[in-house]
């Protein structure tokens, strides 16, 4: 629908794979940070007079 592909990530991590979990989370966080703040699917606050 127009969300940048880099913001979406699917991984299969067993509850025993703690290091893989840390790895994936770190990588995804970095990737999303480089994309900058999300502009899509963000509701603008209603303007109050």
């Amino acid at each position, binding site marked *: 629908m127009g969300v940048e592909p880099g913001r979406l990530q699917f991984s299969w991590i067993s509850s025993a794979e703690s290091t893989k979990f840390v790895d994936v989370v770190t990588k995804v966080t970095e990737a999303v940070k480089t994309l900058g703040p999300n502009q899509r*699917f963000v*509701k603008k606050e209603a303007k109050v007079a």
Partner: protein
Amino acid sequence: MVNYSDKIREISKRLLKDCKVDMIIGFRKGSVPMMNEPHFARTAEDVDELVWDSNCGINLANYLTDRKEKIGVAAKGCDSRNIVTHILENKIKREQLTIIGVPCKGMIDKRKIAGLVEGEVLEVTEDEEQINVKSSGGKKSFKKTEVLQENCAVCIHRNPVVYDEMVAEPVPEQTDVDRYEDVRKIEEMDPEQRWAYFDDLFKECIRCYACRNACPLCYCPTCFVDEAKPQWVGKSQDPIDIRTFHFLRAYHCAGRCTDCGACQRACPVGINMRMLTKKLEKDCKDLYNWEAGLTLDSRPPLDFYRPDDPEDFIK
């Protein structure tokens, strides 16, 4: 398709008389042209009101959900596929149903016709391949193939997939249609363009939920948009809330949607929300070689695990 009505009435009367069914679900004339409405016939007099023409686009599977009585139902190709889906999802039992199969050459697009004639549409009649429209601005005739609903124009399952009786010989299936031309166009867009495309697509949405109510797949006792604890999606007209509603509703139809077009037909402002469901339909075809509602013998891809399920998207 013109002489289907008599045959449907004949079968219906017999089924009711023999107590094979408690009621027949079919169509009767609506109060305005091109707006046939579902009809629940329980007596021989009710049956006389049953009709069949090119305005029977509503999906009758929608009226079978959780019914307890024995029902005879008129089903064109897409209806029958949704009936199969209903049976697979335990919303009705096959034994309860007597399916009156109706081979279908497509339904006509009331909006398209209203746009092609001058003034108000007063009367629409048809013979085999021709649609004759009388409007306040005069009379016009169209070839039926020119005024088909968009989903019917690319339909490849016109004949019922399950039935107990057929009202006529099967019609030839369309084999030379490109079902996904429009979806591929969107797939080729970059995220910017895609976002803009859907912004434009949904900008008229008034969130009446007619698409959801017309959809035979949308039978949840409480829809996620109506729920308040927790509230999954905002109830406002904010474009993001509108988009979230359409997006999630489409996802709930993944692997189940038969592209019957009931949603688009029901929309009062003419939004083609099928652009979302069609993409999911295409994905199911590409990834799982699955088309919804074709057989009672296998489970839909999203409720069944196979070791060879594609998983390239998992990193």
